[in-house]
């Protein structure tokens, strides 16, 4: 690899251009802004959209966290962290509340984000209307005319086929009462975290060359029919076998020893934090 001497990989012109797209996205919540997606040293479809946003907004004093489906240690998250770190020298963290910029694939952390944080979501398919309309010209027009029958029809079809809306992830949302947006493949469980989020949410699709945003304190509503209200994944009666948490998004695992089904926090750093807190409390009580 040739040595790249620019701060944050891109030259200033490229960063400015991406930032302009971001500004427009923030100004029109939920609207997909086209941008000139650049070649990156990681393959498209591996978070290049998110990465380009991260690189163009990050500053020397930022602290970065990168997660891939809840995990800080995945190969993909690690290689993104490495690239950003090598070209910026910014501090890295796994603790959600320590990070000022969080790039994430398919999850929003369990710890509530604050006004001082920006979350960047990686998006494979930014167009919520694509499954009903193949042409970009037509989908642009539908957004412009607030014509979202197609999205509703998709949900209706799922109910006809499966008795419920079958979007396990990427359930479409209305942003600011105007644009229907694909929230990226986060579980439904995370949809509520988009609503009135204190943190700025930026979404980037590298292959599809789109950037969009949910500015802080924006209304975000999951699409649902009157008689089929929006519902999230429920983990009733289940808890994380490590930290005991119940009100989080849990992964299902098979215990290799007993063969039983067990559950575990999907957000690994959250889980570790809970364990640390417990340990601390135990230490305190034993010294008390």
């Amino acid at each position, binding site marked *: 690899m040739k040595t790249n001497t620019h701060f944050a990989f891109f030259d200033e012109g490229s960063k400015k251009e991406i930032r302009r797209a971001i500004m427009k996205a923030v100004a029109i919540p939920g609207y997909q802004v086209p941008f000139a997606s650049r070649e990156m040293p990681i393959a498209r479809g591996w978070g290049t959209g998110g990465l380009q946003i991260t690189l163009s907004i990050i500053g020397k004093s930022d602290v970065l966290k990168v997660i891939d489906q809840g995990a800080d240690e995945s190969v993909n998250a690690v290689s993104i962290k490495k690239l950003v770190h090598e070209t910026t020298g910014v501090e890295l963290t796994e603790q959600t509340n320590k990070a000022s910029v969080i790039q994430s694939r398919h999850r929003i952390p369990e710890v509530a984000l604050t006004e001082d944080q920006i979350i960047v979501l990686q998006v494979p398919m930014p167009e919520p209307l694509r499954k009903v309309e193949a042409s970009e010209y037509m989908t642009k027009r539908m957004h412009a005319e607030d*014509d979202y*029958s197609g999205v509703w*029809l998709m949900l209706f079809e799922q109910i*006809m*086929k499966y008795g419920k809306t079958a979007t396990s992830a990427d359930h479409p949302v209305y942003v600011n009462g105007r644009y229907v947006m694909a929230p990226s493949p986060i579980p439904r469980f995370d949809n509520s975290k988009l609503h009135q989020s204190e943190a700025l949410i930026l979404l980037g699709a590298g292959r599809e060359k789109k950037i969009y945003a949910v500015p802080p304190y924006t209304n975000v509503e999951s699409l649902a029919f009157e*008689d089929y209200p929006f519902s999230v994944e429920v983990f009733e009666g289940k808890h994380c076998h490590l930290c005991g948490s119940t009100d989080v998004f849990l992964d299902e695992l098979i215990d290799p020893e007993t063969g039983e089904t067990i559950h575990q926090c999907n957000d690994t750093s959250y889980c570790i934090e809970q364990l640390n807190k417990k340990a601390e409390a135990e230490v305190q009580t034993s010294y008390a």
Partner: protein
Amino acid sequence: MLEEPILQVRNLRKQFGTGCMECAEVETRKLEKNFCKNCGTVYACQDISFDLYPGEILGIVGESGSGKSTMMQCLYFDNEVSSGEAFINTPELVSNNVFELSAQKKRSIRNHVYGMVYQNPVHGLKMNFSSVGNIAEKLIAAGNRNVGQMEATSKKLLENVHIPLHRMKEEPRNFSGGMQQRVQIAKALSNNPPILFLDEVTTGLDLSVQANVLDLIKVIQRDLGISMIVVSHDLAVIRMLADRTIVLLNGKIIEEGLTDQVLEDPQHEYTQQLVYSLL
């Protein structure tokens, strides 16, 4: 007729192409059928005016290329007119030239006032969505957000057009041509539109299936009193369905009147040929 027309069309023109010096002037242009040989512009609809009255079936007959489908697509806003006016006689729309309304208003007219059955079912149906879904699409577009209601309405409509209920959730691509047309009709009727457009609904269907679909249209008109424009190049279809008939040739109306009159006593030479060649 004493009643006010529900739809008035005035001087509808539709051209494909920009025109040239030789064909720009309506009075002096020399066309080969509907086509300027100099620049290739097609004048598909040339100055079409007519009224549609409540509850009547208006037939449009003409040879292939005479502009029937283009006219229907203009009325349904699939195609933008080159010029002309159309007025719909409902309290909200009265004295508005609907061709000049915003895209949203046009969409609302399509969803609430118009129903359309296309010559080719591919244009009217989403072939890989369920039949119920296809009907619900129109209800959704009109603002319905209640699954139970939409499912019930769709079932009733599909029953009315004789689609067996156990095939309701099937995709129309699995259906025969006649069944597809019947799903299209059910869809077009879903919002009780006062105006229904039918473009060659029976073309390409077996004769027995044709009779079946034509009967259905008759029943719909009788029971629901919907005003319809029925396009066909088949005089037998027009004879069976239409109260009044317009004959189109090269994008122009050359004859119009009560269907019986037009077919029994055609005035224009072209209509005479058309009628007598059928007998």
